[in-house]
């Protein structure tokens, strides 16, 4: 065997630990960790700090496992899209079967250990989330309907609900509201991305709204979802997870978000291309701050509650 052949094999089959970690979609995981933590801490039932840490960790591992299963199933799409070409499977670092095995093993592990660390309601919700994301969204609806983003958003919206269930052992209005916040936020967030990453989704033949119904319809959809989201986000201020801090945050950010959505709605393709999708890119960046700030405000209200200052009481 020559030295050249060893080098070639090493490049093909010897994945590093970081390649396996990349299968878990670490950037998505940070959102899962943050929102699950807020759901757990905003709940009215105190949880032992170590068990709270474990619960959030297992929710994150469950989310990561579903990410690995998504990468296994969608390897053909990832290979075509510029944004995802360097992922471990299309780049040849990890074999698809390996990703599937890791995804399945970690899914089972995360669900069982979340059940042991907290309760079986939270574990069942995590199992359902993984099933929903992998089977309903990835395998079935993603390649079939232009509403794929709306459905995928539901899977991403579960973590705060699971965090809440880990503390309380149940589902309540407050946890459903946190779910709705992410669920309604996801479509405008991703459609804005689809507007300026146009060729990616076209090439991959994923039925994005921009491709199936046109870019004008996508701009309309962004505005409608943003208005519905604003109503819901502000209304949440008057429930037990809300309060003056949350209301102030929601009012400012929703005003900015609606302003951004209106700007996208009023533009046509010529105007967008003239400034390289400046308004769409700004809206996308704002959407990241939007979600982070809303959940931070919920966390702040929960923190103030401990000192008798949170909420409207």
């Amino acid at each position, binding site marked *: 065997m020559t030295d050249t052949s060893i080098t070639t*094999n*090493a490049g093909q089959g010897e*994945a*590093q*630990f970081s390649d396996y*970690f990349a299968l878990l979609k670490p950037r998505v995981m940070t959102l899962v960790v943050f929102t699950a933590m807020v759901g757990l801490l905003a709940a009215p039932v105190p949880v032992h700090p170590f068990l709270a840490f*474990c619960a959030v960790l297992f929710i994150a591992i469950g989310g990561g496992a579903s990410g690995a299963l998504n990468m296994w199933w969608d390897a053909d799409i990832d290979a075509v899209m510029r944004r995802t070409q360097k992922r471990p499977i299309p780049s040849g670092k990890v074999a698809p079967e390996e990703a599937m095995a890791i995804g399945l093993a970690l899914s089972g592990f995360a669900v069982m*250990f979340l059940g042991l*660390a907290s309760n079986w309601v939270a574990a069942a919700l995590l199992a359902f989330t993984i099933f929903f994301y992998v089977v309903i969204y990835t395998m079935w609806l993603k390649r079939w309907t232009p509403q794929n983003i709306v459905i995928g958003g539901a899977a991403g919206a579960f973590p705060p609900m699971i965090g809440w269930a880990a503390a309380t052992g149940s589902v309540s209005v407050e946890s459903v509201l946190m779910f709705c916040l992410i669920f309604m936020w996801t479509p405008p967030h991703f459609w804005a991305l689809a507007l300026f990453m146009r060729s990616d989704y076209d090439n991959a033949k994923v039925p994005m709204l921009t491709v199936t119904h046109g870019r004008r319809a996508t701009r309309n959809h962004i505005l409608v979802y943003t208005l519905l989201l604003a109503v819901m986000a502000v209304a949440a201020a008057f429930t037990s997870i809300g309060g003056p801090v949350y209301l102030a945050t929601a009012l400012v950010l929703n005003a900015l978000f609606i302003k951004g959505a209106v700007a996208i709605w009023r533009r046509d393709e010529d105007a967008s291309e003239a400034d390289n999708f400046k308004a769409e890119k700004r809206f996308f960046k704002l959407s990241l701050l939007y979600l982070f700030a809303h959940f931070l405000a919920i966390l702040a209200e929960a923190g103030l509650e401990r000192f008798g200052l949170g909420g409207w009481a």
Partner: protein
Amino acid sequence: MIGQQHEIHRRRLGRNVGVGLALAAFIAIVFGMTIVKVSRGDYEMKPQQVQK
């Protein structure tokens, strides 16, 4: 015996250390969870379960 280190060995070392650390963290978590749950009485028998 191979005397020279190759790129492939460096990669394997990184992976093995990663798996080792993940296993060590897993043991620490199971141990920690057990201590918390036992010390707060999660596994104590309810009065009706205690045989007379």
